[in-house]
């Protein structure tokens, strides 16, 4: 409390051409630190896929596919996608609570792009998704899942689902901004995800379903994502499904990221 430097308005500006990215990364660092300090946040993304794998493969697999091993080969990409998609809701719930705390008002009073706190949070979320993907793959391998393609394709599969989840998380953020309570974000998020995940080719072959359901399953982007993942992990056609999955992700991002940022800006 002894010395205080003379106030000055101008700040030394480091010669970076991407202040937006730098600010977002600083804020992502904040989110990661908070995650590491609350390891219970990782329970859902680590235990849930393992439990789902065990339930679907060992409880239902024999009945659905005749053999648990055959069903594991079929269902693992689906479980992977399902867990990652369900974990995208967390960011909406967390931001809904976080934004009521004072630190977001301070972010708003700083000369940083308005979207930086949101983008930063999504970058940190990708770490959680990557952990889910890793845990599911390891659990799958332990249970006997085997890939039959090249490492490049496996990495491409991981990146594809990660990108899809990152785009989907903007819907959760938007919900988090417009909902009054964190509980409603969770409720509506799960409600929306059920038809998207279960109403797809994730858990059963599409041709076993009634016609009206097949119609939905065929236009559901998650079906295309699942089929593309299957192709990348265990072989089969990829290109068309992957393109549709990528296109839908991009569309979701293009619609919901601006909506989320706008809702965040106007939420005073």
């Amino acid at each position: 409390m002894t010395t205080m430097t003379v106030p000055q308005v101008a700040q030394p500006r480091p010669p970076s051409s991407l202040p937006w990215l730098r600010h977002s990364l600083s804020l992502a660092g904040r989110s990661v630190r908070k995650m590491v300090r609350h390891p219970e946040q990782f329970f859902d993304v680590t235990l849930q896929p393992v439990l789902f794998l065990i339930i679907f493969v060992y409880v239902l697999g024999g009945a659905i596919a005749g053999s648990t091993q055959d069903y594991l080969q079929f269902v693992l990409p689906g479980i992977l996608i399902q867990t990652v998609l369900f974990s995208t809701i967390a960011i909406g719930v967390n931001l809904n609570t976080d934004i009521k705390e004072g630190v977001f008002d301070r972010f708003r009073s700083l000369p940083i792009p308005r979207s930086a706190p949101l983008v930063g949070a999504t970058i940190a979320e990708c770490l959680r998704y990557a952990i889910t993907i890793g845990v599911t793959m390891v659990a799958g391998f332990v249970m006997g899942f085997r890939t039959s393609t090249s490492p490049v394709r496996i990495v491409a599969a991981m990146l594809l689902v990660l990108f899809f989840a990152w785009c989907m998380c903007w819907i959760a953020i938007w919900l988090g901004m417009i909902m009054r309570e964190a509980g409603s974000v969770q409720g509506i998020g799960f409600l929306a995800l059920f038809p998207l995940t279960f109403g797809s080719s994730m858990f059963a072959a599409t041709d076993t379903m009634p016609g009206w359901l097949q119609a939905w399953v065929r236009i559901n982007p998650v079906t295309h994502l699942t089929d593309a993942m299957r192709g990348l992990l265990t072989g089969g056609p990829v290109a068309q499904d992957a393109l549709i999955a990528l296109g839908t992700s991009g569309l979701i991002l293009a619609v919901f990221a601006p909506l989320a940022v706008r809702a965040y800006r106007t939420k005073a």
Partner: protein
Amino acid sequence: MTNHAIHAEGLTKRYGTTTALDGIDLAVPEGTVLGVLGPNGAGKTTAVRILATLLRPDAGRATVAGHDVLGDPDAVRRSIGLTGQYASVDEQLSGRENLELFARLLDFTRPDARARAAELLAQFGLDDAADRRAKTYSGGMRRRLDLAASLVGRPAVIFLDEPTTGLDPSKRDDVWNMVRLLTSEGTTVLLTTQYLEEADALADAITVIDLGRVIAHGTAAELKQVVGGRSLQVRPAHLRDVADIRAVLSRVTGRPVGEPTRGLLTAPVEDEQQFTNVVVDLASRGIPVTEISLSLPSLDEVFFTLTGQGAQASATATATAKELA
């Protein structure tokens, strides 16, 4: 208005049918402290949020450090520091992590951010707690960290929104000293408060607002003249002395003195000499008293004088509810 660090004209903000600000004008010359005084719900926080670019006004205009809050909010954000009950820190991070984060967001390089955080932690006596989560800080430490956080970018203009509300008196002194230190460095400060005492202690000029309107503006001395200055309060030790003490008070102040309220006799005084005279007079007569004090008019009295009703009565229902809780 060239030398005004903050200048606002006709700021208006409505929420549905509620008018939070009803055309507020504010002017703060560079390097001075403006105290914005008003009860809960008067519009103080709304005004600060508009000036700090957190909120857009429905009408009116304002410049901060020469930049228009609507036209060039980024330049305003580069020039200001904000401390309030809302603009705070991340409780899950340590004091140091918070300050380093804000420095990074203000485009300090990593080493510069580290140095600036260390400097502020030392300045605000937070060295020992630097690496603890802000959540574990005491009320006074939190307030100091909030203040430090708003100073990271060495802003030319600082907004302090009720900086001492909820602090005990010794911590209040702490904050006051820090504000004085800031102003001695030439920083312009806009301070909102519910305490006339605080505005008197820190501000060069005081703007009184109520129900979203400016109802008085002037220096503390001018305001006190309007309100009637200070008052002398005496609590007799024995009921039988009430009449004698009343006589002493009226003789010294030259005004009639009313019945005691809640055991306190109150008389308006014009200067401190009258206080001494009362003490001497009472002592020479051997009249015992249990309490004797000189106090500024309360916010309620200020409002009573300015608006004809107390701060309580003119504040919003929320404020009243808060008061009752």
